[in-house]
């Protein structure tokens, strides 16, 4: 054969390469590749787990934020309602107080009027009595004085004589 080509030696080389392929594939390449794949798979799984957890956390956070917003809205609503109730209650109590005050004032006025009337009536009675007694006194005093004057005058004339 040209170039010293020998089929038997080619077959020997082929056998050698096939043998080497089997050795390196099963003893070296496959186990190392398997280890690398498992490690990559593990980290891929960890990455996916982390992403899932992150997504779940984001979802929970969004839910909480939604709930918080709802709770805030409810609180605002309740606050507004409480304010309105308070205002209504304050108005009602103010109205009651005003009514009571009016009643008290009107009662006081009525009382005062009747008292005034009573006082006036009493005063009138007393004045009448005073006038009567004064008139009586005046009358009695003037009569006495006249008697006294007369008597005095009478006594004076006696002396002159």
């Amino acid at each position, binding site marked *: 054969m040209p*170039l010293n080509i020998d089929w038997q*030696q080619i077959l020997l080389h082929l056998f050698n*390469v096939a043998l080497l392929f089997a050795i*390196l594939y099963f003893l070296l390449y496959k186990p190392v590749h398997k280890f690398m794949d498992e490690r990559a798979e593990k980290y891929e799984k960890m990455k996916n787990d982390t992403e899932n957890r992150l997504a779940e956390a984001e979802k929970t956070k969004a839910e909480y934020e939604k709930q918080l917003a709802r709770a805030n809205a409810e609180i605002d609503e309740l606050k507004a309602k409480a304010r309105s109730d308070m205002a209504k209650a304050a108005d009602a109590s103010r109205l009651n107080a005003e009514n009571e005050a009016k009643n008290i004032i009107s009662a006081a006025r009525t009382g005062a009027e009747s008292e005034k009337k009573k006082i006036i009536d009493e005063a009138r009675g007393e004045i009448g009595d005073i006038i009567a007694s004064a008139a009586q006194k005046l009358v009695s005093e003037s009569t006495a004085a006249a008697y006294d004057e007369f008597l005095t005058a009478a006594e004076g004339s006696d002396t002159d004589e």
Partner: protein
Amino acid sequence: MSKKQKIRSGVLFILIVAALLAGIFLTGSKHGESESIREVMQDAVLHESAKINLFGLKEVNPAVISAFAVTGIFLVFALVVRIFVIPKFKEIPGKFQLLLEQGVGLFDSLAKSNSPHRNKFLGGYVFTAGAYIFVGTLFELFGVQAVTTSGASVSLPAPLADINGAIGMGVFSYLIIMSGAVSEHGIKGIGKALKDFSLPISMSFRLFGALLSGALVTELVYHYLSLSFVLPIFVGVMFTLLHALIQAYVLTMLTALFYGEMSEPAVKKTKKLKKKA
């Protein structure tokens, strides 16, 4: 460094250079050359003169022994790694684990990038081929001696520097490529692979030619005593290293590329669309 030390170093350097020059010019004679350069080159290409007995079965070229020696080295290495190293692999790799992972990852990504559809088996093969070509080529640097049938001592060459070894590698790569075509297209795949019948020849001779050229240059340099000072360090080591790297890359790249092409699924939809149009 003091002035005295500098002078000493300078003198020593000049003496070494002078000794080398003396060696080159005084010994560059006809002595010590038992065979002509033509015979050396012819033997490097054809391996006709030096034969080694393979377990008493057959006389083979030294490259066959090199091939089995390389496989033996790999077997021992792979067994040791499989038994003692791989079970102790850690998630954060150490230096040796990183080296192994880098090697596997490199050929795996080469297979994936060139053959996106079927690449698990291909990754294993290109890893083997790359490791075999690289280590096999570096093997000649160690100068392992073997005894020929004539009783002479011969330095074992790279397995692929022999045409038979290169053909074996090329044909095996072609069979792997064909297996990719068959696994994807069934029996039709054989026809598809046979269309590129020149592939094993081109792959084999490319590999053989590249390694042979390196071997020839090295032989040439080693043959002449006047060139055998300092220069072989660069020629022998650097050329061999470069060849090992380049040929490992070229053959694995070509195999992965053709495997990817052969195992590519047939596109049926476009044909239907074309027919409709």
